[in-house]
């Protein structure tokens, strides 16, 4: 019952007028950012970190702002995928499959509101799950020592590769690049300058915001140059804006199923919204069987991935809040934001700063409700934003990115560093490397090194401490399974191919 009391307290924080306005601004900014090509949740949240800091927002409001932007971005991505058939990011690819056909049928408004509703249910289920499980997990996590944390982070990194599927090696390399980059700068334990090349600006290490904006914004700006052809005309959102009761009832079971699925996938490190939406869509397609009209505008095909994304987005906050180990690119950015405020997410956060944790959880509810309500009057304005041409948009994105980077330390060195990282990110992207593992590695790197060194200090250098406790041993077993997964997949693919040849 403690939990409910805390939740009530959290709503008290989230429903204070100041935080309500913050959440409203966040959802609006997020939606616009998610709509625009070249900006996604990761750079949206990253751009706001220095601004939230400059505005002097208290930590809980800043976190609420960032969470609202995150949810808003997910929603904005949905608008462009339904009306333009252009998925704003990887996780909304599945939304286009049935969302765009629905819009073509003249049901654009219904598709948008239904997707907002689905995502709301997904987020609702996940938030309930969070309320139930997060305190338990946090209590359990207190048993974690440095060795356990280190192994857990190894597991999280390996999970990324194991779950990402088709390119485990590249994911792994990307994560290692991030892990390595985190060690640049002065070493806190010994005072040794590492990889700074005697550059005074690197003493502090690479700034998180610089890395994120370089990797994601600059590389995207360069990528947009290749696509100078003008996008399709957006489908006009006319007619009925709101779904009716019958339609909501028809997808309700799908919503529940996919919400739970999304939450579970979100909690697992490395899986995240992309995988959740794909699995949800495939599962529902199989369940519907021949009766479904998936791919031609089936409402279930729209509801399934949207619910899963909503669930996964909130589920991803569970490992971030309880363990301090982010599971996705966006939550990694949020950890970066928290560390600016000198808040270390982890089990103790639940005891020491319940206002922040429960205020954040409650504001997720609030932001989700806002998104459903905003959808109806604002959709025409949002569709107009989609018509802004690239030539006006991209330079402005570049300039704002510059402001975001300059705001951190007010040195132009950071601007040059950002451009360098951006070019590197562009090359990585062209070579089909995923970028969010770099980010995750960068965030986890510092924690990983500290925990490793602390653990080995405890054991006085004996490596046994890394696998002697049951938790560490369990984590290693899981890690081994994750490492074997891609190998198994490759092996199975090969044997199928061989059988196909044998049959011919």
């Amino acid at each position, binding site marked *: 019952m403690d939990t409910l009391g805390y939740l009530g307290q959290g709503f008290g924080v989230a429903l204070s007028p100041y935080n309500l306005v913050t959440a409203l601004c966040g959802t609006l900014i997020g939606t616009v950012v998610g709509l625009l090509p070249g900006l996604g949740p990761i750079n949206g949240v990253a751009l706001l970190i220095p*601004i939230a800091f400059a505005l002097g927002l208290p930590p809980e409001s800043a976190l609420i702002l960032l969470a609202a932007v995150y949810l808003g971005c997910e929603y904005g991505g949905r608008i462009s995928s339904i009306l333009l058939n252009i998925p704003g990011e990887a996780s909304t690819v599945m939304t286009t499959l049935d969302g765009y056909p629905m819009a073509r049928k003249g049901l654009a408004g219904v598709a948008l509101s239904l997707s907002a509703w689905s995502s709301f249910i997904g987020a609702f289920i996940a938030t309930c799950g969070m309320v139930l499980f997060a305190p338990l997990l946090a209590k359990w996590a207190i048993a974690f020592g440095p060795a356990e944390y280190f192994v857990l982070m190894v597991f999280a990194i390996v999970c990324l590769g194991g779950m990402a599927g088709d390119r485990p090696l590249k994911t792994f390399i990307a994560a290692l690049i991030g892990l390595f980059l985190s060690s640049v700068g002065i070493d806190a334990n010994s005072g040794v300058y590492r990889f700074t090349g005697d550059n005074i600006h690197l003493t502090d290490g690479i700034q998180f915001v610089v890395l994120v904006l370089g990797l994601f914004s600059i590389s995207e700006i360069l990528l947009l140059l290749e696509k*100078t052809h003008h996008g399709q005309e957006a489908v006009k959102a006319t007619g009925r804006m709101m779904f009716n009761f019958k339609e909501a009832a028809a997808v309700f079971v799908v919503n529940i199923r996919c919400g739970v699925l999304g939450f579970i996938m979100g909690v697992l490190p490395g899986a995240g919204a992309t995988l959740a939406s794909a699995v949800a869509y495939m599962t529902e397609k199989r369940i519907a069987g021949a009766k479904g009209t998936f791919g031609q505008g089936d409402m279930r095909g729209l509801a399934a991935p949207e619910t899963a994304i909503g669930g996964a987005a909130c589920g991803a906050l569970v490992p971030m809040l309880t363990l301090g180990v982010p599971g996705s690119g966006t939550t990694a950015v949020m950890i970066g934001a928290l560390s600016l405020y000198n808040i270390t997410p982890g089990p103790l956060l639940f005891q020491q700063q319940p206002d922040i944790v429960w205020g954040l959880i409650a504001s997720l509810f609030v932001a989700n409700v806002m998104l459903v309500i905003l959808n109806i009057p604002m959709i025409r304005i949002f569709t107009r934003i989609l018509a802004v041409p690239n030539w006006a948009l991209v330079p402005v994105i*570049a300039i704002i990115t510059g402001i975001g980077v300059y705001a951190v330390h007010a040195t132009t060195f950071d601007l040059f560093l950002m451009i360098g990282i951006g070019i590197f990110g562009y090359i990585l992207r062209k070579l089909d490397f995923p970028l969010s593992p770099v980010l995750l590695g960068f965030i986890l790197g510092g924690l990983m090194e500290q925990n490793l060194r602390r653990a080995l200090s405890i054991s006085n250098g004996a490596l046994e401490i890394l696998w002697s406790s049951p938790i560490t041993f369990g984590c290693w077993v899981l890690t081994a399974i994750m490492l074997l997964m891609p190998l198994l997949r490759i092996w199975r693919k090969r044997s199928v191919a061989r059988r196909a040849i044998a049959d011919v």
Partner: protein
Amino acid sequence: MLIQRIFASVLLLACIGLALMAWPYQAAFSYEPVGPRAFPLLMLALMGLALLYMVFRPAPIVHSDDDPKLDRETLTKIGICVLLLLVFAGTFEPLGFIVASILIGVPMARLYGGRWLPSAVIISLMAIGLYLLFDKLMDVPLPLGVLDVLEN
């Protein structure tokens, strides 16, 4: 394939170089068994192994259909764009935010297919608007540079 091999080799060389750089990192006096060089060296070693594998067995890149091939024209554009960004970074403080933004924003808009006049108008308005928004409203200090005289 070839590009991937080249990329992996270059990165591999960088790894080796960085590892050599990290080798002498040692704490002058220390109370802990693990020094400052262990973790970066471990990461570099793992990365090196993965890259070595990639040099010999690069994975094919799956291109989606709407992904246009990189031609000379696009590459020049990307080069110009990078150059503009560098000019932006270089002139940000000496010329000030507004002038630097207009200076690189207008050619950049041209690069993305805008026409001269609308680009110039929109970018100039946006540069001034963003300056007022961030510097005056949101307390993010931005340099005024050559426009400093207008301030007082």
